[in-house]
């Protein structure tokens, strides 16, 4: 407990106390000398069409991108866990997007995706029409692609570590007993990888919220409505000084994340006790 104190104090000071204050703001009608108004702020928040749209978009983005990312990075990890030509180079290449600063990443994507950008130039060269990547229904797939490009290496490394921790003897036994490749994968690899998978899913969900940074830098505070995320909403509420809606949106979002993370961790715990 004593050794935890510095960490706990920092967490309390920078996260817990501000969050509690935010929670209080979300129940009052103004920031200084406000009165308790109960759930009125939440009511007006849920009445806002743009908030609902932002919530749906955020859910949709996380719902599409995280499973896709998990499958892709697991596939890559399986591929790169066996001897392969240029294996080390490939591993490095996949992790590189993580270490490039956001500003440079955004600059490149901008050149790439702009209405007059490289991608459209290539499309034009091939005889197709131009696509407004970030300002049409293509915006969501574009964002998913950006997210996967950025995070696939990180998740792959985590999966690789998980794969190494599975004892080789399990596979040997399975092989002696005549289990095929697919059976080995579904009954040994995936099963013993579950704790790693839960962790990777959690990290990926958190990272999926971070895609806002790139979106904001690429498309500004009012992007095409398909990629208008909860963070856009909160950011705009901050600039229109509507702290009440901002904090109640944040409280709702935290509530959802806590439920999601809690149920994931509970599932993992059940799995562990089942293993033993």
């Amino acid at each position, binding site marked *: 407990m004593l050794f935890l104190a510095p960490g706990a104090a920092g967490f309390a000071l920078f996260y817990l106390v501000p969050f509690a204050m935010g929670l209080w703001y979300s129940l009052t009608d*103004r*920031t*200084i000398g406000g009165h308790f108004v109960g759930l009125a702020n939440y009511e007006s928040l849920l009445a*806002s*069409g*743009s*908030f609902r*749209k932002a919530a749906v978009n955020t859910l949709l983005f996380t719902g599409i991108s995280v499973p896709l990312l998990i499958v892709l990075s697991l596939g890559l990890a399986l591929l790169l866990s066996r001897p392969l030509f240029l294996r080390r180079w490939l591993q490095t290449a996949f992790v590189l997007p993580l270490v490039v600063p956001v500003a440079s990443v955004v600059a490149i994507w901008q050149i790439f995706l702009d*209405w*007059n950008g490289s991608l459209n130039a290539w499309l034009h060269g091939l005889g197709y029409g131009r696509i*407004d990547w970030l*300002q049409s229904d293509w915006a969501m797939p574009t964002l998913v692609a950006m997210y996967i490009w950025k995070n696939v290496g990180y998740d792959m490394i985590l999966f690789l570590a998980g794969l190494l921790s599975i004892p080789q003897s399990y596979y040997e036994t399975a092989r002696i007993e005549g289990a095929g490749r697919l059976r080995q994968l579904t009954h040994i690899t995936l099963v013993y990888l579950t704790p790693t998978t839960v962790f990777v899913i959690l990290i990926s969900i958190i990272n999926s919220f971070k895609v806002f940074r790139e979106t904001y830098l690429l498309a500004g505070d*009012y*992007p*095409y*409505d398909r990629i*208008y995320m909860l963070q856009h*909403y909160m950011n*705009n*509420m*901050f*600039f*229109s*000084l509507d*702290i009440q809606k901002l904090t109640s949106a944040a409280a709702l979002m935290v509530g959802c994340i806590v439920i999601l993370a809690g149920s994931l961790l509970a599932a993992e715990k059940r799995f562990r006790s089942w293993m033993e």
Partner: protein
Amino acid sequence: MKRTGWIAALCVLLLCLSACSGNGGNAGSSPSGTSATSGSSTGAQQTGAPADGEGAGTEAPAVEREEIKLPTGPVKLVVASFEPSEQLKQAVKKYEQAHPNVTVELQAAQTEFKDLDSQIANIEKYVSTTNTALLSGKGPDVMELDLLPREKLVGRGLLADLGDWMNRDAAFNKADYFVNVLDHMQIEGGLYAMPLSFYPVALIGDKAAIDKDGGVQDGDWTWDEFAESAQRLIQKGTHPHALANTPDYMLSELVGERYAQFVDEAGRRASFDSPAFAGLMTQVKQLFDDGVVIDLMKANFRNESKADNPKINTYFQSTQIPSPMEFLLLMDQYDGNTHVYTKPHAKEMGPGGYFMANQTMGINAASPVKEQAWDFLKFLLSEQGAADPDISLGHTGFPISRVAYDKEIQKLRDEGEVPGYKNGPAETEPFKVNEAYLDLLDGIVTAAVHPVGQSTKIDDIISEESKAFFTGQKSAEAVAKLIQNKVTTYLNE
């Protein structure tokens, strides 16, 4: 009798002083005031001690005018500006000299212009830090509001109503100021953003050429009617173009005229995807393609040959008049045939000219030294605080102080000539003052009642997205759809 009055007055003064210092430098109401009034009314007036505290003044329905008491102890006044003008810096110095107990801390978010990117980053930082400070009940006592979201600050009750102070303060004479401007700067029924100066916005034109080529009916014209007349004029071709401007400005004017048709703020609905809006964009583009209106950027480019005598090739010019001297220069164009026309506007707009407020200042509603803050602001507004014509050659707009303006005009009339000046490579010749023009200017500045406001988020979205159409990159329908998409998000937040 006279003697007892003096003694009573002295007593009041002493009591006030002790009461003030007891309150830690803040002005407090002194209960002794009532006894002084019963003693001698003349005496109380001479020392300027008000009969009752400020609480009673604000509660009473009919506001009693009183002299605002200033704290006598040391006071620190924080004044924030994004980039303080030379005028503001000078005013702070002068104010500190006049009030030795007051220190004014001038906070600047930017001290010098480096490049556009850092400018934008600095503005964003200034806006977000000031907003946050105000929301948590702190922040500067007096601040420049030009870059801040005024309406929203007012909506949250974070700014003090300066109209209240103006009515209460016996030392403030409203008639010394341009009331027409002050009265039309109101937000939600109060004056929260006080302009230190303003630019009258006017449309001037070459009367000789216009009359020769058929004349115009400018009494109550809309931009639509202006465009029609302009097309007719350039057929005759005394000048090749009718006006120099930017496409997004023209579009915003045309949208502004029929705003309710496109935006239903209460119902949170936008109708930019209607054919009417695409039609407007096409109409604007047509005006530029036909050369009826020439792009300002290109027009300036053409004029670079000789800076102080550019060749004017348009029938009309839309201008913000920066100073009386500049107005005289403007009127001397077109070989002295210049005429001031009514700016095209929506039919329901009503008569009167247009102005753009400059350097608007506000007082923090949570400031502990509001009396001093109001006094400082009053000083900025007043004749002594108004722009010194020697600083930046008077290019800071028209002072909100009528007295300062009248003095400047009187000086021009008396001297009868504007001396030439040298500013870097540019040099102007001295020229004669035409008094008829100054009379005309008087009419313009006193009739300016319509503020040309801060651009809204919707304006920004329209101008940003419509660029792709005006440069021929996207179709009008595609741009209209995008604007509709984004404005809908904005309206429903």
